[in-house]
């Protein structure tokens, strides 16, 4: 197999899981403060999956989701995708815009802008934690948003990986608000070359 990600040791996977843990923990705290709700977060999954199977992590390629995408620049270029099932995204907009639950039925320009800002804040929190942990400074681009099928949105990231290999390394965390109204998936997908940089920064080569 030509993929470098297909041959990670248990130690390396643990290190990546820990990175996901501090990053997502910081993001969850940020989100919790914005919407003033308790957020539960699962232990991050670090998975190496065939590219075509990645959409199954969020329920399948034809599930309707809102995706906020950020490209990350620095010593370990990566992609960040924050995916919310459509109903979760609508509920989050209700909260952000001070509307009643269920009021948002489609996204207008302001709603999209609010969700992109959430993506921005979560990514910033994630990357800050990652910096504290690894000393690798990473900067996200301005976020972009799309509401569509999960497969279509994920393909943006998967195609980039497809040039280098047939597997994706995804560090993924699932968020849940305490009332179960909002579920979200936060993906950090390092570029193939970035993995070494991250692993050596935490001393697991």
């Amino acid at each position, binding site marked *: 197999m030509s993929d470098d990600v297909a041959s990670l040791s248990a130690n390396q996977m643990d290190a990546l899981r820990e990175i996901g843990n501090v990053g997502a923990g910081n993001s969850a705290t940020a989100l919790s403060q914005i919407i003033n709700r308790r957020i539960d977060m699962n232990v991050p999954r670090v998975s190496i999956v065939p590219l075509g199977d990645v959409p199954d992590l969020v329920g399948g390629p034809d599930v309707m989701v809102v995706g906020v*995408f950020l490209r990350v620049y620095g010593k370990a270029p990566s992609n960040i995708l924050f995916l919310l099932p459509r109903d979760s995204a609508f509920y989050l907009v209700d909260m952000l815009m001070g509307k009643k639950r269920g009021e948002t039925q489609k996204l207008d320009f302001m709603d999209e802008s609010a969700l992109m800002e959430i993506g921005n804040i979560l990514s910033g929190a994630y990357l800050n934690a990652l910096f504290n942990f690894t000393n690798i400074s990473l900067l996200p681009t301005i976020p*972009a948003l*799309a509401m*569509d099928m999960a*497969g279509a*949105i994920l393909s*943006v990231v998967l195609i980039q990986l497809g040039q280098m*290999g047939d597997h994706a390394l995804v560090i993924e965390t699932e968020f849940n608000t305490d009332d179960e109204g909002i579920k979200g998936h936060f993906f950090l997908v390092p570029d193939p070359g970035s993995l070494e940089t991250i692993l050596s920064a935490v001393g697991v080569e």
Partner: protein
Amino acid sequence: MPELVKVGMADAKVGTAPATLISYGLGSCIGISLYDPQTKVGGLLHIMLPDSTQSRANENRAKFADTGIPDMLNEVLKLGASKSRLVAKIAGGAQMFAFANATDIMRVGQRNAQAAKEVLASLGIPIIGEDTGGSYGRTVSIDLSSGVYKVKTIDKGEKEI
């Protein structure tokens, strides 16, 4: 209920009527179908990238237009399709996120569509239906009983090409 065959990302399936071949949630990828209306043999290919020679990982030939299309052609010929009767349809190739400074990789949908057309032209297979571009996802399917190629979207409804 006729058989519904799922075609994954970077994957191809061939078959005969009454099967329907379907691929879910295409973004910048392209769903390319080949169909022989007489023998009702056809195939559906879901490519991710235009050109295998530009890639470091090209073992999976169905990932690329330049290798995936000729491979699918061989498979449908084996099932009894005649090359002179084959027709192609293509859909997909969207750009899902709009960036001010879209890099090459962001425009990969457009390049995928271009590559698919060039490869089909070089093989002498006419394209009789096309729905490419835009900024939205598509679920595509071809019914091998009729050759009808359906494109489903979330906001733009469903159409046949």
